[in-house]
């Protein structure tokens, strides 16, 4: 009987799925029974964890803040995993396929300096103020109006981001399994709702750490095997230059002196100041989704170490995300052995199934005229040979992973998406309950009532984000959409918090007006370009600028605009007494002294090491 079980498990997909799982296109692969078992085990595990933790999530402190019991390692892994949703996996692999190694900026300069700044400089203020949320800090510093405004904008962002995660997961299921988008969205939404509503933040963090391990276990093989087949770094470079007729795909900085010199159409000033400061510091230091993980640490030292631990892993993530995108440029093949060329998401949607806008969009792609004509000639049925940029990672998985391993790889993707959704809805639930429901609707309810409200808001939040998932389909690529969200909400918030935390003169009215007008300014810039794409050249300062450049520059302008408003209004309004700013503002706060520790436990030593590695990586890939 040797091998009878593996043979059974590997023999084809289950054929008894309900008939409503309408296939929208021919699937890339048929999952073996072994793969189905692997995926099912994951779903069983996360739901069981939710039930296990339900008994430990009875008070609001336990449900919303995980009891503030997390170690630095758990908080750090959760901190970086909360950002490992659809954004990190499919989105950035697809962006790399489109733009090359420039996408790595979003991992390195777009994350590492900000993570160190959060741990070393900002964390003490968040932690000492004992706030439950970032809007809660704004309430202490600027008052109720600023809190409500930040809470509403954050809640809206979380719902939209949750929709992004759901849609990305549904795309994976469509590409690999052929399931309809609707079915995949409903399944993922149900699972996330169940385990987060049961176990709260603790359950979300638990699953984020689990997801982190699964992602490395499931996705690491793709770049390893891909590099073997490509002939190592030298072979990969040679083939990309031969296929793309450019070596810009390998350089982080060299070709960023002019917008037109690099495939992303960005300038180094936008990368450094727009991405490296406005977007990155805005996200990693003020977005409650990630800050909430660190606030759950059991003491201040753990809270400071958590982002530093996370930064080590953040620097390594490009190996499993960026590298597969590059490998896809040279290794993916059509059934006839020719090189497979992926296309933008909106082109794919226009052509699968065929619509009138397919032909003009196809002309903008790098597909040869013969291939374009071949696509247009297939009037009936789905164009199964066409795949979008966002599908590069699952395509690479199918290429190298057999039964069992493919299931693990798909599970890693599902875990990433579900974890991202869980992070969004758990943060949404906290902000809704603490910063909107409690101060505005019901101030004097019992603790158990607020826990009930938190659980209910998770269910409602997921339902609303399902609608957002369908909105995403109309965007030009998942990443562009997400970046637009960051710059609209995050950049004004960053300026508001930084000035509030480091400038005693900033006043209540200035903080509120700065945030309000900053968001309005950011939305106006977005709409200005959305209505007339020609305006992009004004926002990004160049005719050659592309969408990514618009996002980073819009964030920079929104941040600067907000800072100017806060400065001007503060100069004309009365500041708060310094005594009221204790615990909230640098220079007015006596930070707690920490017990001395051996050098290998000192956060400054580890932050220094991160800084050295970060600098070296940027020089190596200059």
């Amino acid at each position, binding site marked *: 009987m040797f*091998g009878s079980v*593996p043979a059974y498990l590997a023999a084809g997909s289950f054929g008894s799925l309900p008939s409503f799982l309408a296939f929208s296109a021919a699937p890339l692969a048929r999952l073996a029974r072994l793969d189905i078992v692997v995926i099912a085990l994951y779903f069983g595990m996360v739901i069981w964890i939710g039930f296990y933790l339900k008994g430990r999530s009875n008070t609001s402190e336990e449900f919303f803040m995980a009891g503030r*019991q997390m170690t630095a390692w758990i908080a750090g892994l959760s901190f970086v995993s909360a950002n490992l949703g659809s954004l990190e996996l499919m989105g950035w692999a697809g962006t790399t396929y489109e733009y090359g190694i420039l996408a790595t900026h979003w991992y390195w300069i777009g994350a590492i300096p900000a993570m160190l700044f959060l741990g070393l400089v900002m964390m003490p203020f968040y932690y000492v103020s004992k706030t439950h949320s970032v809007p809660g800090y704004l309430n202490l510093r600027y008052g109720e109006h600023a809190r409500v405004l930040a809470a509403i904008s954050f809640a809206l962002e979380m719902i939209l981001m949750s929709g992004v995660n759901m849609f990305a997961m549904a795309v994976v299921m469509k590409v690999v399994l052929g399931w309809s988008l609707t079915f995949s969205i409903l399944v993922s939404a149900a699972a996330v709702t169940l385990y987060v509503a049961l176990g709260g933040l603790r359950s979300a963090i638990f699953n984020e750490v689990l997801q982190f391990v699964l992602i490395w276990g499931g996705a690491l093989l793709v770049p390893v095997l891909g590099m073997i087949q490509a002939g190592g770094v030298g072979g990969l470079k040679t083939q990309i230059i031969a296929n793309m007729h450019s070596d810009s795909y390998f350089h982080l900085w060299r070709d960023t002196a002019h917008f037109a010199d690099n495939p992303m159409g960005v300038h180094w000033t936008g990368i450094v100041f727009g991405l490296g400061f406005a977007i990155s510091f805005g996200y990693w230091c003020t977005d409650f989704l990630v800050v909430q993980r660190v606030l759950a640490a059991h003491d201040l030292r753990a809270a400071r170490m958590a982002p530093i631990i996370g930064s080590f892993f953040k620097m390594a993530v490009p190996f499993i995300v960026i590298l597969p995108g590059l490998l896809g440029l040279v290794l993916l093949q059509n059934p006839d052995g020719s090189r497979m060329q992926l296309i933008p998401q909106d082109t794919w949607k226009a052509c699968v199934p065929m619509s009138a806008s397919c032909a003009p969009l196809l002309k903008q792609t790098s597909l040869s005229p013969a291939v374009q004509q071949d696509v247009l000639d297939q009037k009936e049925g789905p164009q199964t040979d066409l795949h979008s940029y966002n599908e590069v990672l699952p395509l690479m998985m199918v290429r190298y992973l057999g039964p069992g391993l493919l299931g693990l790889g798909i599970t890693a993707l599902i875990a990433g998406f579900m974890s991202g959704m869980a992070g969004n809805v758990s943060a949404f639930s906290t902000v809704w309950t603490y910063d909107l429901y409690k101060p505005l609707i019901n101030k004097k309810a019992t603790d158990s009532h607020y826990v009930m409200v938190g659980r209910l808001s998770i269910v409602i939040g997921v339902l609303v984000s399902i609608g957002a998932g369908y909105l995403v389909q109309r965007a030009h690529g998942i990443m562009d959409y997400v970046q637009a969200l960051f710059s609209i909400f995050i950049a004004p918030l960053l300026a508001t918090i930084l000035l509030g935390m480091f400038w005693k003169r900033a006043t209540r009215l200035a903080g509120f007006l700065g945030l309000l007008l900053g968001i309005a300014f950011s939305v106006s810039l977005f709409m200005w370009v959305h209505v007339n794409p020609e305006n992009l050249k004004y926002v990004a300062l160049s005719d050659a600028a592309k969408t990514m450049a618009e996002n980073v520059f819009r964030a920079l302008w929104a941040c600067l605009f907000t800072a100017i408003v806060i400065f001007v209004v503060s100069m004309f309004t009365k500041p708060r007494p310094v005594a009221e700013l204790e615990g909230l503002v640098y220079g007015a706060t006596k930070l707690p002294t920490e017990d001395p520790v051996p050098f290998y436990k000192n956060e400054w030593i580890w932050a220094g090491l991160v800084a050295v590695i970060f600098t070296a990586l940027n020089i190596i890939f200059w």
Partner: protein
Amino acid sequence: MHGSGIPIWFFIGVLLVIYGSMILGYGVYEWHTGIYPPLVQLTNLHTPVWWGGVLTALGVFYVVKFRPGQAVK
């Protein structure tokens, strides 16, 4: 996880042991019979065998080190 209860690392270890042994078992079967998935590349490297082994070993380590009742620092 800090505090009482089953450490998260134990759950991870259990899942890795199950996944690793399933993949390792299938890899051994595949190598023994010589029947490989037709569209998968680099099957000559027997990836399921060594990767399944790595996952299993890692899982066993976590299960043993973080089993319930152990004092975990």
